[in-house]
């Protein structure tokens, strides 16, 4: 589910983490900020996904995202926007958890290689990107 009961069809070449990062950025930008869970949660999720999609992920980010998303919906916010911004995170991570975990694990492994002095120039440049 992509949020406000909308369906977006994408093919299997699309980076699912990047797609969710894009969606969450939209929600963080749209949140009015009136009530706490949505105001803080939407930007938090967006920042996490931005990090994850820019090579700074962690293996645990999938569960981390779910926990943030779980704090927003279920009648805790004034309007349905809170639900809408957390649903895509909940459903993307539920349906494609292995992709999120793999992405985070890959980033973690690369950082480990770099800090151990094994990282090539190419990978350093990638991480900085």
């Amino acid at each position, binding site marked *: 589910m992509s949020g406000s009961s909308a369906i977006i069809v994408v093919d299997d070449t699309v980076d699912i983490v990047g797609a969710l990062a894009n969606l969450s950025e939209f929600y*963080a*930008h*749209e*949140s*009015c*900020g*009136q*009530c*706490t*869970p949505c*105001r*803080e*949660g*939407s*930007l*938090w999720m967006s*920042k*996490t996904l931005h*990090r994850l999609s820019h090579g700074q992920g962690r293996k645990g980010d999938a569960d*981390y995202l779910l*926990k943030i998303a*779980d*704090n*927003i919906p*279920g*009648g*805790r*916010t*004034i309007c349905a926007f809170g639900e809408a911004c957390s649903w895509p995170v909940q459903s993307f991570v539920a349906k494609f958890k292995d992709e999120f975990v793999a992405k985070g694990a890959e980033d973690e492994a690369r950082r480990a290689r770099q800090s151990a002095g094994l990282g090539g120039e190419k990978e350093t440049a990638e991480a900085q990107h």
Partner: protein
Amino acid sequence: MSAATKTDNNPAPTAIEMIKVKVDGRELEVPRLSPDWQGKLAPTTMIQVCEAAKQDVPHYCYHPKLPVAGNCRMCLVEFGTPALGPDRKPLLNADGTARIAKSPRPAIACATPVSPGMEIYTSTPGVKQMREGVLESLLINHPLDCPICDQAGECKLQEYSVDYGQSGSRFVEAKVHKPKSVDLGPRIMLDAERCILCTRCIRFTKDIAGDDKLGIVNRGSYNTISTFPGTAFDNNYTLNTVDICPVGALTSKDFRFQMRVWFLKDTKSICTSCGTGCNVHIGSREEKIYRYTPRENEAVNGHWMCDEGRLNYKWIQRTDRLRDVLVHGCKSSWGEALREIAHKLKQAPPGSVAIIGSARQTNEELWLLSRLKSRFGAISDSFPRDGQPDKLLVSADKNPNSNGARLTGISFTEAGINLAKIADGIQGGVIKTLLVFGENVVKRAVSPAALSEKETTTEAIEVHGITADVLAKLETLIVSDILPNETTRLAHYLLPGCAHAEKRGSFTSTKGRVQKFMQAVEPAGDARPEWDFLQDLVCNVTGKEGFHSIEGLFNEMAKSVPAFNGLTWAGLGETGVSVKI
């Protein structure tokens, strides 16, 4: 309805239906309607019920005297209502009790009305988890700068974090940065990073102060409290927003970085800047006053006070305070001076004594002066002090105790009408002894800019003809005051008195509320409370033993002043008693 036919001013309140609700399993009966923030009857809310049940529901944006916003989501609770069958009749459990249908979604206790049979759950795992979630959200972008924050010690974010929060943070992203040390107005500083956007300050400013200056700019997590560009947040009630700010976002320029709040001793007192008599707490430490904060009293000031009154305390600690008893300019002792004064007064022929009291003195002091007055058949009065009133709290009468002066017989319906007579009496040589308490009688009406710090800005003293030349004709001029002025310099006997923060006593407000105040700090130098030495003086003059406690003095006064009949010091309580004025 028979109640409607009653014609008196206080018709019996219409009976409000009581309903039964349960809070965490405890059943209690509550009225279906309760007063809302304006005092109008509105459906009773869950938070009011929980308060009645003594069950704490944490909240940030909710304030009993502000309109409900419901945006902080801290007061979320779970609840259930009696389940109804298809025939709209309540379903029963096997044991005959009503079956409760638990709501799948939580509700904010501050804005949700209760209904008969409702059950509220404030401590379920779900509620605890929601509070943790909200606190986590509030804290992720908070600077966590408690060690340098003025609110530390009285901060709801700190308190609720300890009570309901999680021990650690899992936030690893970069915090949102917002403006810090924003100069919102002449008395207020904003740290937008500390702000939790509860909007209490906005609602207070709009709905209570009636000056719609504050608002929120930007969206989402970048929300920031702001004034309209180019305008200052400068009404006379801005400092109340510092009190109601649950965190350290709004700070008082006067108090910030001055003292940690946990060191402050709170003393229950009364503001003396006008006749309204707002109840205040004086925050002091080691004989120094750091701030006034309003003290709740529904009958007088509610939860608020004006900035002018709140900041009018610095004169108490001026270094040029009168500290010594002076007899003809030479330092003396209380015993000696009071004996000499009593001796002079006893020798004074009837009608040769005049007393100018002050409506800034307490009821007890004015009553003691009135006893001297009746003993010597003296003429007396006090000074009027008028200013600009406002719609909320500020009274046009800038004296805290005009009614006290009138009720004890020092002044009359219109304060100040005897002053010209006193001037004439001195000029004509009839009045030879003048007692002046707490008034600079030779001062003329002056421009606000030339007023001393003790004087509030808008008062004007009427021209009454008592000049320095007139005072020079007196045989004896006895003056008691707190700060030096033109009159104290002319005094033959100068008795240093105390500010209200340095003594106990009571005032009668413009609306006839008799309220007592307590001592916060020690008097300066040799100064003594006026009631204390007046008591000695009355005792010296009359030979009757006085009271050595304010309690006894007040109770004695209450017996002799008709308006105060039946009052006792203890009976005044913390919020005072209304009398007929």
